[in-house]
């Protein structure tokens, strides 16, 4: 069920594909979890700096402020920044749903109706100093049948490499094909 791949920056990620029915598939990419090492490193650095300031200024408010900042920073990081899992639910003839789950349990979902989806493609992008591949959904322009009104990039936080993206791409295309072959209902 779960296969291991690597992300664009080298970290380990896992892809889980589930088929719920003939026209419904769910593809979830799990990002590497928060490491205890990095957490302790950051906390110790902040507290050492605070202790240094305390020794210089002899004001104990610095220490309590450092604890406060560390706690608030950790909560903000877990709730708004650290994404645990990104998943794609493709329901043929209904639409595509993109979900990101954060480390604190928050889930942010977007549902795109099938009528607005033109295609799902793999694109290249320049990210910092690298060129990476990313999967994206092309949305139809309501006025122009050939045009694309918006590009919705997927798996932005886990950034899987091309081998993982090809698996996801193939899965999606199998379902998107069905809407072309099925005759439109009268």
């Amino acid at each position, binding site marked *: 069920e779960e296969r291991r791949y690597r992300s664009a920056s080298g970290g380990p990620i896992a892809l889980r594909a589930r088929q719920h029915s003939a026209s419904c598939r769910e593809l979830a990419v799990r990002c590497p979890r928060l490491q205890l090492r990095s957490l302790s490193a950051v906390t110790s650095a902040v507290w050492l700096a605070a202790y240094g300031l305390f020794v210089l200024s002899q004001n104990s408010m610095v220490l309590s402020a450092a604890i406060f900042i560390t706690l608030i920073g950790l909560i903000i990081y877990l709730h708004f920044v650290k994404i645990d899992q990104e998943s794609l639910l493709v329901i043929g003839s209904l639409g595509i*749903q993109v979900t990101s789950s954060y480390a604190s349990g928050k889930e942010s979902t977007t549902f795109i109706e099938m009528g607005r989806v033109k295609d799902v493609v793999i694109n290249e992008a320049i990210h910092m100093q690298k060129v990476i591949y990313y999967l994206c959904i092309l949305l139809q322009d*309501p006025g122009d049948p050939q045009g694309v009104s*918006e590009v919705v990039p997927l798996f932005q936080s886990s950034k899987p490499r091309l081998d993982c993206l090809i698996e996801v791409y193939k899965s999606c295309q199998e379902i998107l094909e069905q809407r072309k072959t099925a005759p439109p209902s009268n």
Partner: protein
Amino acid sequence: MVLKVFFPSCCSSAESGILVGRWLSEQSSAVILAVVHFPFIPFQVKQYLSEVQRVTKVSVSVLGSWSNSKQEKEENLSKFLEDLGTIFSHEPWIQISKEGDSKFWSCSTFQKHSNNPKEEVILVYYDQRKVMLSHLHPPLDTATSTDQETDDASKLSAIFHTVAKSKMLFMTDRYNDGPIKLTHWQSDGAEASIIVELMKQASVPACMLLAFLLSLVSGICRSRVLKFWPLSFLWRKLSTCEQLGHRLQHLQVISSNKKAQTQTQLMRKANIFVSLLIDVALGILLMSWLYRKNRIGHLADTLIPVADHVAEELQDLLQWLMGAPAGLKMNRALDQVLGRFFLYHIHLWISYIHLMSPFIEMILWYVGLSACLGLTVALCILSDIIALLTFHIYCFYVYGARLYCLKIYGLSSLWRLFRGKKWNVLRQRVDSCSYDLDQLFIGTLLFTILLFLLPTTALYYLVFALLRLLVVIVQGLIHLLVDLIDSLPLYSILLRLCRSYRLAAGVKFRVLEQQDGKPLRLLMQINPLSYGSVVETYRLPTYSCYPKDSWTSLCKKLFLGELIYPWKHKGEKQD
């Protein structure tokens, strides 16, 4: 195409019957609104449905059958249900059956005219009450002004629209003695709150009274008496009057007796009402804090010393400028003239302030009472008091700017004379011109004088422009706060916090447990709008527009000595 059946979760435990709803053929979806139970007379059912269709303009029809058998499968019941398909002819005829307490239902379609192979069925559960009350906000790029009735470009909005418009269908509950027995979300009886009903009854006379009072007040405001020149100038310049006018407009919107037609209008009225309420509550809180322990008296007592202190600081500044400021050497004569002129001005100002000092406490006491009209009014009064107290800084800035501006224009014109060119007013461009010798001589003389006097005027101008900018920044911050309180849609934010399903950005689907051979089961939930979009969609319009000048044009104006008015109000003529 895959058949999608939208089934209300409240009907999951209903008795057997027939399914009533709307069929969207272009999407191959069936939106089930209610279940009609046995026994019924088909003719009466058809009559009832056509009446519902006439009132709600939603094409409701019988879509299929629903069988909920508590015991083992009943063979004759399924045959009976198939026969019903011939009475209520509908393509395709949907048959949903539930056995015992099983979660997994079987759903089959029956098509008479076409021989399509067995198509896949997706069963989507939805919460009827939430979908009915919710308002779908389309994403901004697809938001067009087309009518909702026709041309439902978004499939989801068709579903929301169907459920929302079928309110009449949900009015019949199980206690009605009619021939039709329905099950839907309200079939246990409609609920209402006594307080809400009482408030609705009381609001009508209250609105009429308020409208009458407002018409009196606006009549007085518009009367000729207040239109004479000094008063009208004063009203335009004081920001308190602007704010009071704005709030008056808001009150007029609330007290109008026309019912709100669309969702946006309703939300706007509610937002204005809540905003006014909070504003007045905060204002009264502020007032009670000010008047307790006579804080306003203390404030009045410190006002005059503060004004004195500001004037003294200005005098020290001018003495510094009249000496050798920052080591620069000024032209002694011009320096003394300008310095003495400004010092005399400050002396006049101090005398006026001291003349007014016995009355300050009383004036402030009465003006403070107007804080009960709202916190925004109190903040505007504060901004006006600051403007009045720093009026001398404004005057100095204007004098310095005009002097500097004249100098710059003179210098540029004489510089053109040096090069033998002239500004052609007719053609708005620089043309060459031959000057006489005496013109050149006088021009050069004037140019030299102006050039060597430039540093002195420039320094005075710089100092006063900086002071003026400081005051403008403080006033600007206060106005920013007032704008924030004015335009924040508090009711929408509270609604998003407490009843998040009312403001929907879209939907989200959750895949429920599946069983092989049974249709795909999904749960449709409402995806609420994010707080940022709520504020952006429902923001109340305000009367001030933010600095239209970009930074470059502001700097250019400062350099040339033109007067700057960074905070322009809408409706004021350009200066």
